[in-house]
């Protein structure tokens, strides 16, 4: 149980980077970008192939990020210059990337066992420094000792650095224009911002994060697979929606924090659901879809119930008020 939740949180932090990317396209740019399903794998593929060929895993991950940026820019170009509908530009890019990813990997699956990856490097350094032992001494859980704390800490740190950078970027002049592009395109172009360029840049950035996340997931899981991106946009959306529902999205900083929280909560729900007897690993996508459906429907139901209760209270109050008013007129007539 603990082991399952622990690894969910680990994975949650890695997927949170992807979720931040989806937040950027879906919420900030108001652009439902399906490129994600493809660019996630592109990141994984580029990193794996580079690592197998002896590249430093950190550099390989950075190159993956760049590859994602380019993929996102192409989607942006299709939409802004090619005048293709947003959904369709994303789907076209996703399909195109499927073949490109196969080209990059050369086959449908690239294992990374026995390779030096970001995960192994960090774990080793961590063990050498003896931090794991120190932590385990302080937090002594009898039933559960994790393999290493390195992944959890390093990924959490990475995610929060990315979150902070993103928060800061969205406060700059360019960042404000980016947000306005998603909020009111007509308005921001009347204030001399090139919305085409901003959309392309925003989608590039979004997919860069997605591909980076893909690169890390591949190294964490020990392989990259051409099918690993299927439904990734839904997982990203689930994280964004769950996060916003649970933690609120009053400001950008709050929303990005919520998205990270949402990514972790999603992983935990998934891990718990898979422990149910009759559900199998192959049901993951179905569970994901159900989680997203619920997280979309439940907040609506809750808020409409709240509204009903509010109206009822109002009606009762008014009735009481009329009684009082009636009593007063009676008194006067006497």
């Amino acid at each position, binding site marked *: 149980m603990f082991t399952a939740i622990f690894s969910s949180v680990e994975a949650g932090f890695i997927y949170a980077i992807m979720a931040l990317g989806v937040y950027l396209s879906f919420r900030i740019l108001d652009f439902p970008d399906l490129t994600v399903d493809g660019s996630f794998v592109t990141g994984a593929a580029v990193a794996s192939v580079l690592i197998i060929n002896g590249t430093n895993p950190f550099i390989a991950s950075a190159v993956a990020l760049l590859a994602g940026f380019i993929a996102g820019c192409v989607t942006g170009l299709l939409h802004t210059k090619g005048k293709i509908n947003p959904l369709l530009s994303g789907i076209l890019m996703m399909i195109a990337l499927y073949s490109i990813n196969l080209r990059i990997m050369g086959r449908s699956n690239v294992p990374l066992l026995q390779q030096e990856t970001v995960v192994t490097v960090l774990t080793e350094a961590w063990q050498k420094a003896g931090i794991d032992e120190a932590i385990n001494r302080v937090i002594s859980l009898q039933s559960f000792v994790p393999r290493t704390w390195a992944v959890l800490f390093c990924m959490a740190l990475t995610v929060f650095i990315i979150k902070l950078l993103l928060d800061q*970027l969205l*406060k*700059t*002049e*360019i*960042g*404000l*224009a980016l*947000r*306005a592009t998603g*909020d*009111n395109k*007509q*308005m*921001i*172009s*009347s*204030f*001399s*911002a*090139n*919305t085409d360029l901003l959309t392309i840049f925003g989608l590039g950035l979004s997919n860069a994060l997605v591909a980076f996340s893909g690169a890390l997931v591949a190294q964490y899981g020990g392989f990259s697979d051409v099918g690993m991106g299927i439904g990734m946009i839904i997982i990203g959306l689930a994280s964004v929606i769950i996060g916003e529902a649970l933690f609120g999205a009053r400001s950008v900083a709050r929303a990005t924090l919520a998205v990270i929280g949402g990514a972790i909560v999603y992983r935990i729900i998934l891990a718990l659901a898979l422990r149910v007897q009759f559900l199998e690993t192959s049901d993951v996508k179905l569970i994901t879809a159900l989680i997203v459906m619920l997280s979309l429907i439940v907040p609506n139901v809750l808020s409409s119930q709240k509204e009903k209760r509010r109206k009822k209270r109002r009606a009762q109050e008014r009735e009481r008020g009329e009684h009082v008013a009636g009593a007063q007129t009676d008194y006067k007539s006497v």
Partner: protein
Amino acid sequence: MLELRQITKVFNEGTVDEKVALKSINLTLAPGDFVTIIGSNGAGKSTMMNVISGKLLPDTGSVWINGQEVTQLSEHKRARYIGRVFQDPLAGTAPNMTIEENLALAYNRTKRRTLKFGVTKQRREFFREALKTLQLGLENRLTAKVGLLSGGERQALSLLMATFTKPDLLLLDEHTAALDPARAELITQLTKDMVEKLQLTTLMVTHNMEQALRLGNRLIMMDQGQIIFEASGKEKQSLTVEKLLQEFQRIRSSHFASDRAMLV
């Protein structure tokens, strides 16, 4: 300041829906001119505004701002010279962003956007001072989301955002039409004050003849894609709504008369 030369714009050319929206329009605005444009629906007022702002490109003719030809310049590039307020109060502001963020967006109209923070301490003070001129108390609500403001407040904010960077040309497209009479009066007064204070060259479309007479030093009446009547200075001051309507009827009927003459 602004010059339109022989502007023609046709929609749906070669189909049964063909409509000549602008017919060889010539118009010159001197610096500081405040021109009000009236005319019935379909007269070509909005098309003319869109041709000036770059949202539409004319079929023939050229647009000049500050002695520079901008006919082919894209909308966002042209926006460096032009401040705009739209009819819809929702159109001129970003609802999910705060008042100060909206002002920061407008503040960057004339500059290249960088990775510096959009809202700095110094700018916030500047925004606060600018908002005070609206006298709506918005200076105390800098971090409120604009979506929470009323239509009148949003339109006042739009007007401020369009003007406080002193554009070479201010375009007002029926910017009081969607407001109740009291708010419309407020925005009209604000418009008058701001244009006078900053000496802005302004082009304002309106359906309100009384407003068209009250504001500005020049008045233009458009009909069927042409400028059919123009008054400025003393002549404009002596105009009344009745006189304008008479003038409109007279020109209209003379058009009809000439049409009939051609048929006979």
